[in-house]
């Protein structure tokens, strides 16, 4: 069937800010869908509150609303734009829930908007646990035995029937939020009680435990003619009990027999038909009993998902694109497969390689959180790798994660038999480190310290991981043992090691040499990877899409080219501090540099990245895509392959964040042509001495600072700098270990905690004067050696001290005077010149008592680039990429990439205000006692994403930003609890008086209450939970839902938790 003629405009709902469980994968799928719909000639209307996405770029949709994904707001958009249809299946659970609300309140019917992609009925059948159970039963499948509960009493009654342990799953939550395993009644009351709260329908499913079963997933698509394809099968290496998002997964499924696989296929297809998804995609999750083979259907998502993004990247079959076409009427056989250009989408992809995905965690940011992996997703990102076999793909995926110990380093000796006993105990609990610990155990077995077969038995018993995976890992360990035992690393052994995914560094550690030496030997022996193509068809048809992965095999499939290429290094897995904002800049670089119509454009663009969630790894963003780890070894190999294919004009390391930037020096030394700001200039900005000289030369003030190696110099330096001081180890990233110290006693305490034995540090401790009550300012600018273009000046809401990534900010700045703006401009220019910037520069300033201090300068793309681009309507990252390739700002102004005149500092007075607000994941992380971790903002960045609120005034824009980050946003009436630290008491009465005047009931504690009553503000003083008494404490009132707003500022930092406020006055780029 051709496209439906009755649909002329479509509203697409995005997924909002990046949160755990709902990340960049929906930017990827949403961007694909919007582009396809526009190609089809439809008017596309988009709503998404996340400014860091590619999908909210103005050229992706016809009307882009960066507005909260709230039913009221979407209704206003529908009223204004009058779309014919609503496509809710591409924005994750958020979009689905919004669509359900709009259908439920009659909005869709009122405005004649048809829901496409999946009907409300199908969504309900898939999402409602009971209805889905019935679906499974009707198609002859089995679900885990379960009971639906709506109250604590229901939970306890069901427990008697099902028996502990049980899985608790709240209905209609995303990323498994609120789910967990209950081993006893206390667990059940806690997890089940929370689950009832999280579920919008106060509904929790209790289920028999299938812990330790094997877990699989199928990605399916179906069209209106009932054609069904299984796009991909995915197997979890971690058995049931670990959320799929937190599990290491492989595609295709590797440990099923053909008969078992067919059974899952038949079930999956029967389920998509019975649920009634007839114009889109879905995934179905299964568990199989490792011994009996009993199959249980776990759940289904009637929409594109994190797994479908992974499946798309793993197979080359773009699920979201095809889902969008199917939704507007096409059938699968009518849709051409872009990769082959000849086969239709009704051909199921075939893989002649193995794909492994490894999750990336951020537990170091939440030291109080329980790091055990459960059915609630906790990972913040993921990396994917491809290889010709499982071990090669696993090795590459582990090093793609960009965490020092994500692969076994082989630096120490293999563990002794006694240590193994302890390690075997450790691997019973699933954690982020489990696979590496297993590698260590297997290494011991391969070295003959343990019996290999018996070790495998013990590992299967301890972890329930399928024996085949463990046996494969044992094979790698055996190769490692062989290398360790050999005198001469010959070509056969080295090739074998490379075919099984060992890196040069790992091999080097095994022979007591550096990775560089191994690289030299490898090259001398002519052992280099070749590049194969992801072609959806296992080479059955020719492929026209250069989407490559490396493997130690025979022939390369990289084609020669004429045009000079620019290699863009991506940012790797999403993590806190390095999220999709960096992917955004990389995507823009590819778009600009590949565009012949732009000044300085017209290159062949080559993307290197390993993040399966993002837009940058879509095969049609750059001219060529290499799905490779961002390590020195892997990047150099891609460069060599591309150099052999044609001229390489440059390599860009400034846009992907810290990961590529940290490779700059070594890549340059290896002969790679790094373009933009030179690696030496990047180092200059980091070096305190050099940067201090730049500031001194330009007569720019910076907060006093010093360095210390031990307690005695620390107290001396701090006394000289003056308390309060910001203290931190010098080697940290993202504000790790930063604290504010108010006096010498605090400093002694800090040193005692951070330097064991009170001894000397390996690297100096940095001590900076802390600028109290300073306004923090962020600037993003471009510099070409002659001209400066200031992209935007952002004023932080929070005072200097809270990590810039966690602070809200406004653009245009709302209180800065013309004189301050002038000083910002001259300071920025002086720093850009002094450092030697060519491209982007981010500077943080602090304005304190009329003095503009320079806190830090980062000569690279910053987190705020996409926000600035959207707030000012200028494609800043594109301009930066063109500058790096040698174009000038003057050319970019003439060519229309930058405005002909003016810049981001001269927005008109009546310009709307854009507020950026951070989204924090505290609710996801629980202490071992089950409490949420503390939510105080500090020197460590902990937000996972951001939203933008755009409106005519600051208060309105701020209100929108609050609505965009969570549920209902700020209350407009009700009860507010207010309790502040002493330092905040003077400034408190005015806003509280306003709240009281607006009709809020004010609750408070004795100390704050005394201040408020002296100002005549009516308030009710509550008992502290720690004080005896009968009346309800504030905690009980909050837990009973009787408080609508909580304002609580913590006192000055004490031992046991990190500082609440601290300036990051770093003359360096590493803290961000």
């Amino acid at each position, binding site marked *: 069937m051709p496209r439906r003629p009755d649909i002329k405009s479509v509203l697409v709902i995005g997924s909002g800010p990046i949160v755990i469980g709902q990340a960049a994968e929906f930017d990827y799928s949403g961007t694909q869908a919007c582009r396809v719909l526009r190609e089809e000639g439809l008017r596309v209307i988009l709503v998404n509150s996340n400014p860091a996405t590619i999908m909210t770029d103005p050229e992706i949709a016809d009307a882009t609303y960066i507005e909260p994904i709230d039913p009221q707001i979407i209704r206003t958009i529908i009223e204004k734009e009058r779309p014919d249809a609503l496509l809710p299946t591409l924005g994750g659970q958020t979009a689905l829930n919004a669509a359900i609300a709009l259908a439920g309140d009659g909005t869709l019917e009122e405005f004649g908007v048809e829901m496409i992609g999946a009907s409300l009925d199908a969504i309900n059948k898939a999402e409602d646990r009971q209805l889905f159970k019935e679906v499974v039963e009707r198609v002859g499948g089995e679900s885990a035995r379960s009971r639906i509960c709506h109250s604590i009493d229901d939970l306890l009654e069901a427990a008697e029937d099902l028996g502990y342990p049980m899985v608790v799953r709240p209905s209609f939550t995303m990323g498994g939020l609120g789910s967990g395993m209950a081993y006893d009644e206390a667990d059940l009351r806690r997890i089940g009680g929370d689950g009832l709260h999280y579920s919008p329908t106060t509904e929790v499913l209790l289920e028999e435990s299938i812990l330790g079963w094997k877990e699989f997933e199928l990605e399916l698509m179906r069209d209106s003619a009932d054609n069904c394809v299984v796009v991909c099968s995915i197997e979890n290496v971690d058995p049931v009990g670990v959320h799929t998002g937190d599990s290491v997964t492989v595609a295709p499924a590797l440990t099923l027999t053909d008969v078992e696989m067919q059974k899952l296929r038949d079930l999956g297809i029967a389920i998509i038909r019975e649920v009634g998804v007839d114009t889109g995609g879905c995934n179905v999750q299964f568990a199989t009993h490792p011994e009996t083979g009993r199959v249980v259907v776990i759940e289904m998502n009637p929409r594109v998902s994190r797994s479908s993004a992974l499946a798309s990247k793993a197979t080359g079959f773009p699920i979201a694109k095809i889902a969008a076409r199917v939704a507007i009427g096409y059938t699968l056989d009518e849709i051409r497969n872009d990769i082959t250009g000849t086969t239709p989408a009704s051909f199921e992809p075939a893989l002649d390689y193995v794909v492994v995905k490894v999750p990336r965690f951020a537990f170091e940011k939440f030291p109080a959180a329980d790091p055990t992996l459960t059915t609630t997703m906790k990972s913040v990102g993921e990396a994917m790798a491809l290889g010709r076999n499982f071990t090669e793909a696993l090795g590459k995926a582990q090093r793609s994660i960009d965490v020092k110990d994500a692969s076994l380093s082989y630096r120490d000796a293999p563990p002794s038999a006694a240590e193994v006993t302890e390690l075997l105990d450790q691997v019973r609990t699933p954690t982020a480190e489990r696979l590496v610990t297993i590698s260590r155990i297997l290494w011991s077995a391969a070295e003959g310290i343990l019996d290999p077969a018996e070790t495998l038995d013990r590992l299967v018993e301890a972890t329930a991981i399928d024996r085949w995976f463990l046996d494969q890992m044992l094979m790698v360990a055996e190769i490692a043992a062989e290398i360790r035992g050999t005198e001469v690393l010959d070509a056969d052994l080295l090739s074998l090691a490379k075919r099984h995914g060992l890196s040069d560094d790992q091999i080097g550690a095994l022979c007591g040499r550096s990775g560089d030496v191994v690289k030299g030997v490898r090259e001398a022996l002519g052992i280099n990877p070749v590049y194969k193509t992801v072609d959806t068809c296992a080479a059955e048809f020719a492929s026209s899409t250069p989407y490559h992965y490396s493997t130690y095999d025979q022939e390369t499939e990289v084609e020669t080219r004429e045009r000079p290429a620019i290699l863009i290094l991506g940012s790797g897995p999403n993590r806190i501090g390095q999220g999709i904002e960096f992917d955004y800049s990389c995507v823009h670089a590819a778009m600009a540099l590949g565009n012949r119509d732009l000044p300085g454009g017209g290159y062949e663009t080559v993307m290197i990245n390993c993040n399966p969630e993002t837009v940058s790894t879509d095969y049609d963003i750059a001219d060529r895509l290499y799905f490779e780890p961002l390590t020195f070894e892997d990047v150099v190999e891609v460069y060599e392959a591309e150099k052999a294919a044609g001229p390489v004009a440059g390599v860009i390391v400034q846009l992907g964040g810290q990961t590529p930037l940290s490779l700059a020096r070594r890549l340059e030394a290896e002969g790679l042509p790094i373009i933009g700001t030179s690696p030496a200039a990047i180092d200059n900005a980091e070096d305190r001495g050099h940067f201090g000289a730049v500031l001194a030369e330009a007569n720019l003030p910076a907060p006093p600072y010093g360095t210390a190696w031990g307690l005695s110099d620390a107290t001396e330096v701090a006394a000289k700098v003056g308390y309060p001081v910001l203290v931190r180890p010098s080697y940290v990233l993202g504000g790790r270990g930063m604290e504010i110290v108010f006096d010498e006693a605090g400093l002694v305490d800090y040193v005692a905690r951070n330097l064991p034995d009170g001894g000397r540090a390996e690297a100096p401790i940095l001590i900076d004067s802390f600028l109290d009550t300073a306004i923090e300012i962020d600037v993003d600018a471009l510099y070409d050696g002659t001209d400066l273009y200031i992209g935007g000046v952002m004023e932080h809401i929070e005072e200097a001290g809270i990590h810039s990534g966690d602070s809200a900010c406004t653009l245009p700045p709302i209180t800065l005077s013309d004189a301050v703006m002038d000083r910002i401009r001259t300071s920025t220019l002086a720093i850009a010149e002094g450092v030697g910037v060519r491209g982007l520069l981010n500077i943080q300033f602090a304005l304190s008592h009329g003095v503009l201090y320079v806190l830090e300068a980062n000569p690279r793309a910053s987190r705020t680039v996409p926000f600035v681009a959207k707030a000012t309507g200028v494609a800043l990252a594109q301009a930066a990429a063109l500058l790096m390739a040698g174009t000038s700002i003057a050319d970019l102004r003439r060519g229309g990439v930058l405005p002909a005149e*003016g810049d981001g500092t001269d927005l008109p007075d009546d310009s709307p205000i854009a507020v950026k607000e951070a989204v924090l994941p505290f609710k996801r992380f629980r202490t071992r006692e089950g409490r949420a971790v503390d939510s105080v903002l500090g020197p460590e960045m902990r937000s996972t994403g951001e939203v933008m609120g755009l409106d005519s005034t600051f208060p309105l824009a701020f209100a929108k930003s609050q609505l965009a980050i969570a549920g209902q946003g700020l209350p407009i009436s009700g009860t507010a609890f207010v309790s502040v630290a002493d330092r905040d008491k003077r400034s408190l009465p005015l806003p509280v008086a306003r709240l009281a005047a607006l009709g809020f009931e004010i609750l408070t504690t004795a100390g704050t209450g005394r201040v408020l009553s002296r100002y005549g503000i009516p308030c009710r003083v509550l008992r502290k939970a720690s004080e005896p008494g009968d009346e309800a404490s504030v905690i009980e009132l909050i837990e009973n839902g009787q408080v609508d707003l909580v304002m609580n500022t913590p006192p000055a930092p004490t031992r046991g938790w990190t500082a609440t406020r601290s300036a990051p006055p770093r003359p360096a780029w590493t803290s961000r």
Partner: protein
Amino acid sequence: MDGYAIRAAATSMDVPMITTLQEFQAAVQAIEARPVEPFEVLSLQAHTARLAASRARVAHA
């Protein structure tokens, strides 16, 4: 410890929570400004066009 318990309870219950005075001041202004009627919405394309138009106006002035 009371402060942490309060914040943890608010986090668990999704109660809007503010931990700095500056954000509180902004929030109170936002509460006051928040319309009873739905918010007005502005597309990015319209926003960008308005900025460009106003830039052109300034340039000619």
